[in-house]
């Protein structure tokens, strides 16, 4: 019925808006680190409550739609998926806040080494977030699978960073504090990519009607 379609459209817009906010938080938090910009880090931390507010709003809207519209089949899967996805997005926002926090700390100390891989990880993670949400809205299974594949790349980058940082720490104990904080940032970025992967897996559930979480990806 027409009015239900309008409400679903609104729900999609809210999810995309939340996704855009999360994406920009990730970008800005890493930027704050790389460009040593405290103001930007503080903004990321402040803006997080807006992301949380959207999370609550979307959840309430989903409950309302379930109660009033008795959605079935694809509509029902979409709405229940939306509720779970916002949890992932909200945690991604929290990760960005954590990165911003580390940035604020690292900016007080001299730079350890030029950041190359961290921005690279950030870029991939942002791309995965954006694509996962596009896949959701367009019910694009291929795109979702593509997102899932990229997770390995992020994992590899993280381990690469860890190894490099360990070598720094072994050589010079004074670097341990900074190296640890940088490794945390890498960890946060890897978690962000994991969340984006979750979102992509849920998109596949939405499209196929089968839950594939916690399974190995089928050979395609």
């Amino acid at each position, binding site marked *: *019925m*027409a009015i239900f379609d309008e409400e679903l459209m609104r729900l999609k817009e809210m999810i995309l808006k939340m996704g855009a906010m999360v994406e920009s938080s990730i970008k800005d938090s890493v930027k704050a680190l790389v460009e040593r910009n405290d103001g930007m880090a503080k903004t990321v931390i402040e803006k997080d409550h807006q992301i949380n507010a959207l999370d609550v709003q979307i959840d309430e809207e989903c409950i*309302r739609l379930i*109660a009033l*519209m*008795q959605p079935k089949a694809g509509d029902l899967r979409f709405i229940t998926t939306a509720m779970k996805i916002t949890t992932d997005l909200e945690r991604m926002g929290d990760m960005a806040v954590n990165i911003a926090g580390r940035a604020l700390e690292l900016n007080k100390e001299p730079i350890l080494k030029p950041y190359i891989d961290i921005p690279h990880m950030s870029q991939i993670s942002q791309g995965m977030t954006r694509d996962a949400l596009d896949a959701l809205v367009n019910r694009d299974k291929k795109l979702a699978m593509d997102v899932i594949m990229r997770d390995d790349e992020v994992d590899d980058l993280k381990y690469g960073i860890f190894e490099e940082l360990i070598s720094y720490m072994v050589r010079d104990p004074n670097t341990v504090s900074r190296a640890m904080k940088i490794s945390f940032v890498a960890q946060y970025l890897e978690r962000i990519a994991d969340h984006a992967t979750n979102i992509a897996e849920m998109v596949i559930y939405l499209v196929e009607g089968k839950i594939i979480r916690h399974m190995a990806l089928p050979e395609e």
Partner: protein
Amino acid sequence: MSNNLKSESRKLNFFYGNVHALKNVSMPIELNKVTALIGPSGCGKTTYLRCFNRMHDLYPHNRYEGEIILYPDNINIISSGIDPIEVRMRISMVFQKPNPFPKSIYENVAYGLRVRGVNNRKILAEKVEKSLRGAALWDEIKDRLDKPAFDLSGGQQQRLCIARALATDPEILLFDEPTSALDPIATSKIEELIIELKKKVTILIVTHNMQQAARISDWTGFMMLGELIEFDRTDKIFTAPSEKLTEDYITGRFG
């Protein structure tokens, strides 16, 4: 809502002979919105609805107490000083089982106007078309207006009855379980129609299908044994009702 009311009942009581069927029902009806009444069989929702167009006056031994106020005139439409016919000229009803007259489609819609003495062919034709368009039926039957109404399908007949009720520009449109005799597709068409109609007419609908009330109404009243148990915005009633009875009914624990 208080300054945007079309009508409200105040301590409405109703008696079928000695049976006390409605007990102190006070309920507001917001202008240009859909108000739904739900509740188990025999709870009095249809009795309540039929007070609004004085249908009870047609049968003996019925008695009203209390008031139903119509705005903006501020008159009590169930007072004995008001002629039921005047009330029915302002408040129309659509019944549970489609009941078109065994006449042509055109004559069905025109009847309400003829009753008011409108005989001018041009005016009648215009109003008939306008009403049939308003009921989302015009395109389907515009080239067979003189065919018998009984030839239409159940869903079309019900939309014809809606057109017939709309022809007289009612201020309130009463629906008594309008889709309970129809198949799901016809039901869906009429629900969409009601959502569209509320922009122009205030609507009060009784339904035993609470999902329907959830889908299309703005306000919902839950009744049981002649009493109004709870009345609130529809999304509140269906997500977090205040009364346990309401919650039990909605979750299907009884009724």
